């Protein structure tokens, strides 16, 4: 862990710090060398903050689910926060994000307002999908967050199409497509990788390999378990990254996002990670042992990053307390917002099936 470094070298001229409510672009060239350490610290703390925000948001969501305030399917990302947070650093405002049904983390890391997210899970009209989508279908056009796909593998062709649109319009944007290890078995994975490679489309395939597709372990659903290697079958590159290490995720994603942005075609990253919680709120977890889960929890991406930050003298106890407080406050505020949110009138049931014209 201590071998990690916060490396801003070799990054394109602008990089993105994702704040709670907005995204800032900082031109690295304008930063005085003396300020760089501050920027680094600031960035590192942002990463921590982002991960904690997701963790606490979901812990709260689980509570609210037990209370019946949130319903439907709820898939928690707890344990995998380093992936969404680290990867999302690599994308600019014009880049596009496609995610799965386990996408609270991606939405938050992308800057989808936490209020609109919570309201969505309450099914309120001020939710990010007007309460029509729920936990599995978060959308935010302004942040180019394209959802929210609950059919495993179903988002990949969409991502390929978004990238095709950018290529046809000669825009230097990247489409980031998140999906699980389970999706790798679906035909659409194969078809999408082939098409993206064939047409050299700017898609970054980001596999969150948490070792299980629901209750089916990787080795029970993949005849060949090295996912990164599968890119070779389509003539492009893939690599595996430690998905429990936010800095490793950020670094790798930045590097290959640039590569993709340069028009060199798609790239596959496999993030090796683990889901600490059940698949969904219904899952009795018969398929794995408590010990296995405990072993992985020792590698908690937040706890280990905190330890490392402390070792590097980048995190004071007071700072952590401040971050925790800010997160708690933000979540409480989001709940208030959601609870106060209006319900869509039943008369509007049929709205947004088709585009209202004129």
């Amino acid at each position, binding site marked *: 862990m201590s071998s990690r470094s916060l490396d801003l070298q070799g990054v394109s001229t602008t990089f993105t710090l994702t704040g709670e409510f907005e995204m800032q672009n900082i031109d690295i060239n304008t930063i005085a060398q003396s300020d760089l350490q501050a920027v680094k610290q600031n960035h590192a703390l942002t990463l921590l903050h982002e991960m904690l925000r997701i963790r606490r948001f979901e812990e709260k969501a689980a509570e609210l689910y037990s209370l019946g305030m949130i319903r439907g399917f709820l898939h928690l990302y707890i344990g995998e926060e380093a992936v969404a947070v680290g990867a999302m650093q690599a994308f600019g405002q014009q880049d596009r994000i496609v995610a799965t049904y386990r996408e609270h983390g991606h939405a938050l890391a992308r800057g989808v307002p936490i209020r609109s997210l919570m309201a969505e899970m309450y*099914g309120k009209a001020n939710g990010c999908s007007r309460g029509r989508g729920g936990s599995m279908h978060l959308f935010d056009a302004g942040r180019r967050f394209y959802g929210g796909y609950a059919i495993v593998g*179903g988002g990949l062709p969409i991502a390929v199409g978004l990238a095709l649109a950018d290529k046809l319009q000669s825009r230097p944007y990247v489409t980031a497509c998140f999906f699980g290890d389970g999706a790798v078995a679906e035909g659409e994975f194969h078809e999408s990788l082939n098409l993206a490679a064939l047409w050299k489309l700017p898609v970054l395939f980001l596999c969150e390999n948490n070792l299980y597709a629901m209750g089916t372990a990787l080795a029970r659903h993949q005849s060949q378990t090295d996912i990164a290697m599968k890119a070779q079958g389509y003539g492009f590159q893939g690599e595996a990254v430690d998905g429990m290490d936010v800095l490793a995720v950020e670094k790798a994603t930045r590097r290959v996002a640039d590569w993709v942005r340069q028009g060199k075609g798609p790239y596959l990253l496999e993030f090796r990670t683990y889901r600490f919680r059940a698949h969904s709120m219904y899952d009795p977890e018969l398929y794995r042992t408590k010990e296995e889960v405990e072993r992985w929890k020792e590698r908690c991406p937040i706890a280990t990053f905190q330890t490392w930050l402390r070792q590097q003298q980048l995190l004071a106890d007071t700072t952590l307390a401040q971050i925790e407080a800010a997160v708690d406050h933000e979540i409480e505020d989001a709940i208030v917002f959601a609870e106060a949110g209006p319900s869509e009138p039943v008369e509007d049931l049929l709205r947004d099936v088709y585009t209202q014209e004129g």
Partner: protein
Amino acid sequence: MTYREAIRAGLREALRSDPRVFLMGEDVGRYGGAYACSRGLLEEFGPERVRDTPLSESTFVGAGIGAALGGMRPIVEVMTVNFSLLALDQVVNNAATLRHMSGGQFSIPLAVRMATGGGRQLAAQHSHSLEGWYAHIPGIKVLTPATVADAKGMLLAALQDPDPVFIFEHAMLYPMEGELDEDAGAADISQARVRRQGNDVTLITFGGSLPKTLEAAEQLASLEIEAEVVDARVLRPLDISTFLTSVAKTHRVVIVDEAWRTGSFAAEISAQIMEQGFDHLDAPVARICAAEVPMPYAKHLEEAALPQVGIIVKTVQGL
């Protein structure tokens, strides 16, 4: 015993009594089934006969067809009808056609089970009711068990059938309690069934809408309207004669179907009743279906989108 337990009992009985039977699908083994229908079966029958598949609906449904061709009696669980869209080519173009296009050389004794329906706030991609689509396909049979007895009996019947049978288990029914004779065997899968007698109106439904319809009938009874409730049970081949017998008595029909209205299977039932029972009808056949909207997540919107007891009662009163 619950509907879920009845399915499990059926699975267990089938696996015990016929070595050619095996179960495959996503998470049927170690997880115990997304709806816990197969919990315990892996332990009893082992991983050769209770097989977890990768996420690859088209291929494991196709493999079920192939295994049936090869002499087995596969039970394929497609977790839900929503994902079965990925396998529809295998259903329409292989399961349903192989017998015919080989000139009758092959039978495909395949049973495919899947959960269907809405009502749990699972939103637009997880709430489909597409059994009506399946019922459009000649070459397969389509069952919609709505009672605990049918949950087990229809599965056993499907396994005795030489042709591909698709069983739609409504997700809201799994926890439903009901009677089941310990040694009840295969159910009849050729006929609809009158679930409640009545002379004033015929309510035809199937699957997840049966409990709602029966409840509506109770409410109507308190309003002095005696509804006859007919459970279609089998959508293909459809038993129209049971409907007609009832219509000849009541002269009024309401069909309750959780699918979107346009192109619903309710339309087929309506059309057939008109075609064959026109002279018995005192009023046009009415349909209560889902609103034509991808299922919204919010509870009040989902409730408004789906057929409910209240609207059934109101529709009958307005006939």
